[in-house]
Structures are given as C-alpha cells and as structure tokens.
C-alpha cells in the first residue's frame, strides 16, 4: 500500500481510513509516535479514538486521510474522537478524499476534547468530486487555558455542509476558527457555527471568507453565545463574501446572544463585489483585467490562508487557491491510494 500526497515537504504521520473505516490495514501502516494512542471503538466498527498523553508535544503533524475508492455510489459515515491531554500539543490535518468519479455522500463526525493547557491545530481539507456531498460535523469541548486553531477549506464538491459546535466549559479557553470557501457553478455551501462562552475570560475569533462565481450558493450562520457569568469574554466574528456574478447568492446571519455585561464582542458581515477602483488602478499599470481580478480575489482569500501555521500546508494551499481562482477545477491529483 502506498500513498502520496502532493503537499511538498509535509513531514507528517499518516493515518489512512479506507471508505471511512479504521481497520487492521490502517493500524498496520501507521506507526504512532510516542504519546499517541489509537483505540478502535468496540461499539461501532470503523470508528476510533485518538488520545494524546498529557504533556506531549507531537512534533510532526498527524495527517488523517479518508480515502473513498469504490466504483459504486457510496454513503460513507466515519466518526472519530480526539482527546488532547493536559499540556499537550497536536496538529491534525483531516482530508476527505474521493476522487473517483461516482456520486458519494460522505459524513464525518469529529469530536474533540482539549484538556487544560493543551492546544490543537485542526485543518479540515477535502478533495472530493463535484457530484458528491460532504457533511462535516465537529464538536469541540475546551477546558481551561486550552487553545484551538481551526481552519476549514472548501474548493470542490457539490453539496457541502459544515457544522461546528464549540463549548468553553472552563475559563481562559481560546478558539480561533477560520474558513475559506471558493465556489462556482452550482455548488451549494452551508456553514453553521455555534460557539458557547459558558465560562469567563474566554477568547474567540471567527473569520470566514467566501468567493462565489456562477450560480453558487452559500449560507453562513454564526451564533455566539455568552452566558451570564462569562465575564471578560472577548468574541469577534467576521464573515466576508465576494460575489462575482448576479446569480451567485449568499446569505449571512451573524448572531450574538450575550447575557454577561463585561464583554467585548463584535460581528461583521459583508457581501460585495470586486472593488472597481482597485481593478482600474491595477489595469492602468498594464495588468490585464483577468489577472487584475485574480490578484484582488487572491488578496481577499489570503487573509485566511496566511494564518495557516504549517508552512508546507500554507504554501500548498496558496498555490491551490491561485489555480482555483484562475478557474481551474482543483483536485489534488497526486493524492492516490494504491493497494
């Protein structure tokens, strides 16, 4: 079995699920680093739990790839649990990969617990064909002084449904939740996020940006809840969208529900078009209209991508996004799975 991923110089521990199933094959080819334990869920075949022992710094990122490679239409459900122990650090790249040509429905359910003083970088990527549906559901529970960095990138697929639920169950939790969706043709994107500041001194930042071409649709719902005793909460939320045609459609619903009085909260939502003055300015320097548009769209998207901490992943995404904005149908064509 051989797997190659196009991300250059990404030195990662690789864990492969086959059609959503964690099985003997996955275990055979995975050499878990010290401090990481994986146990299959005895109640549900194919599901598993990944635990990082307390006070462990996992040096290399862990890349989890769910490969769908059956010739028939498939409903794939996969679920896993991640527990990052007290004082530990993990980077997790989660890719759903279905570059076969058939219509799949992929459902993922990820449940994350961050113990006190732990930190997790979670990158949710996908590489699915444009007939497929992807439902990603993520639930996060954060203990005191834990830190979450979450990035969600959507470049392909037909129906995309992302749900994120984050609970601050103790004080001084910190979550930075970002995402980028680049959609065209008839792609349909839905993102719902619920972030609960249940305890004081929490800090959260949300930044989601979208570029929509053709008849693409996006729906964004961001709900921030601040409980009555969750004083000194700081919660920021931003959703910005760029519409390239009259037929593209965005609905954005920022929603703050605040019961505490000593908080700093803000939200912003914008839906706009490319800045005509900026476009003209670029063209007067000799940059053709198409390139000028790409330059402006890339600048818009890069606001999110530049915050990816893993250099090889960031460079790869930058390239992928440039190509996507040039109208290419993006697939990670080297992401191949051999038996």
């Amino acid at each position: 079995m051989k797997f190659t991923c196009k991300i250059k110089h990404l030195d990662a521990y690789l864990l492969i699920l086959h059609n959503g199933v964690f099985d003997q094959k996955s275990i055979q080819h995975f050499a878990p680093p010290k401090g990481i334990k994986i146990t299959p869920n005895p109640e549900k075949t194919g599901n598993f739990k990944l635990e990082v022992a307390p006070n462990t710094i996992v040096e290399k990122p862990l890349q989890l790839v769910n490969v769908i490679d059956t010739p028939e239409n498939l409903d794939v459900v996969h679920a896993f649990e991640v527990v990052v122990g007290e004082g530990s650090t993990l980077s997790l790249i989660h890719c759903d990969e279905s570059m076969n040509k058939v219509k799949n429905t992929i459902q993922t359910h990820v449940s994350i617990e961050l113990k006190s003083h732990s930190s997790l970088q979670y990158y949710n990527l996908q590489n699915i064909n444009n007939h497929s549906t992807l439902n990603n559901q993520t639930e996060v529970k954060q203990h005191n002084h834990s830190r979450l960095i979450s990035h969600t990138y959507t470049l392909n697929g037909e129906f995309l449904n992302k749900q994120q639920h984050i609970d601050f169950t103790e004080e001084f939790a910190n979550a930075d939740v970002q995402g980028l969706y680049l959609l065209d043709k008839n792609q349909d994107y839905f993102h719902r996020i619920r972030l609960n500041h249940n305890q004081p001194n929490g800090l959260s930042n949300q930044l989601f940006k979208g570029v929509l071409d053709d008849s693409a649709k996006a729906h964004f719902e961001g709900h921030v809840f601040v409980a009555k005793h969750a004083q000194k909460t700081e919660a920021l939320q931003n959703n910005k969208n760029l519409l390239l045609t009259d037929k593209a459609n965005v609905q954005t619903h920022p929603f703050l529900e605040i019961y505490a009085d000593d908080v700093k909260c803000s939200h912003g939502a914008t839906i706009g078009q490319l800045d005509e003055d900026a476009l003209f300015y670029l063209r007067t320097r000799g940059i053709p209209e198409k390139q000028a548009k790409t330059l402006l769209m890339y600048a818009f998207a890069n606001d999110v991508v530049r915050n990816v901490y893993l250099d090889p992943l960031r460079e790869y995404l930058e390239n992928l996004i440039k190509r996507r904005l040039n109208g290419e149908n993006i697939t990670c064509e080297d992401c191949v799975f051999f038996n």
Partner: protein
Amino acid sequence: MLTIKNLHANIGEKEILKGLNLQVNAGEVHAIMGPNGTGKSTLASVIAGREKFTVTQGRITFNGKNLFDLSVEERAAEGIFIGFQYPVEIPGVSIANFMRTAVNEQRKYRGLDPMSIFEFQAMMEDKQKIVELTDKLAGRSVNEGFSGGEKKKNEIFQMAMLEPKLAILDETDSGLDIDALRIVANGVNKLKRPDNATVVITHYQRLLDYIVPDFVHIMYDGKIVKTGDKTLALELEEKGYDWIKS
C-alpha cells in the same frame, strides 16, 4: 507623441470636455493649470480609459495609434502612465507582487521575456531610492495605511519602475508638505529623458518651482483657453483665475 484633437467627453448627460486640443512631443514637460471643476482630472481619466466617461467627439492618437482602440492595460503597455490624485488602497496585494506582475505583463505585451526575480529586486531597490522610500516598501500592501506623502511617492516609484513614454501626473502636489513635494518633484526630474514626456496637472504654481515646464496650458470650462511658457503660470498666480474667466 500625444495628439488630442477637439475632444468632447461626458459623464452621464453632462459634458465636461468641450473641444480640447493638445499636442505633446517627446522631451517636453507640460503643465495644465486651471480652477476646480474645469475638467483637468477628466482629461487624465479619459486618456487612462476610465469607462464612466463617454467620448462623444474628437480623437486622441498616441505614437500614431488611436487610443480609443486600446484597452486600459494596452494603453499602459504602450507607455502611458497616470499618476493618480487619490491612489487606491489595495489591502493584501504587496507592492512587490503588484509591480512584478505589472512589469512582466508590460514586457509580455512588448514581446520581451519576464524579468528574473533577482533583476527585479535590484530594480526595486534602485528605483525606490529615487523617491526616498525605505526598503520595507516591497512587502507592504499597495497604499494601505500610507500617509498622503507616501502615496504620492509610491506613484512616482511606480512610474520609475514602468519607465513610461508619457506620464500624466494628476494633482501630484495636492496634500503634500514642502519636503514631500521636493522629493516627488525631484523624482519626476530624475526620470526625465529626451525620449519621454511629462504632463503635470496642478492647481497651484508651487509645483512649477520644482518641475519647470516647457509649456503651460490654462484650462477653463472643458477647454484649453491659453498656452504659454512658464511665465504664464506666474502671471496666473499673480492675477488669479478670475483673469481667465473674464
């Protein structure tokens, strides 16, 4: 180089340029002066190719080519540069990336190979000295958070990078303190060559203490109403614009 004959241009239904004539030859510096609202900036916009203005009559030729056959970017690649009165802020696009794209696109238009990164970097360093901009410039977003003076210096820096045949500088002196004005004007003077030409559009005589024009044109109500040498600017300064209106 640039010939404008009987140019009429509208914005919406309103006529702004009402039969303007202008001839600019290689090696010359022209100043266009005039009160607010007489169409000076409109002239720059029409030459640049801004779509919101409609040309209803007249023609512009640039080195023998009909300007109206060329797109905005083609005019630039043919060698026309516009220095803007209000340069646009473009967050997220670095000056280095912007200029490298512009330089290489113009080279492509002229059938030249793209410039290597090393050549380009050397050129950036060299040209930013002309307007006394620091070497931190490359990584900054275009005009974002720039002071008024920096924005205008950045315009002249871009002009230095693109080496146009004809530069039209629209109110480049507005909003500048005396030091910035001197730096901007020196930049323009350093870029002067026998094979290029500059048109400065200005409201005040002040700029012309630094950039000495061969011709001064006075524009009023959409037309050039008077042309002379640099003494005309002094005369105008002394008598005021009412002298033209009467």
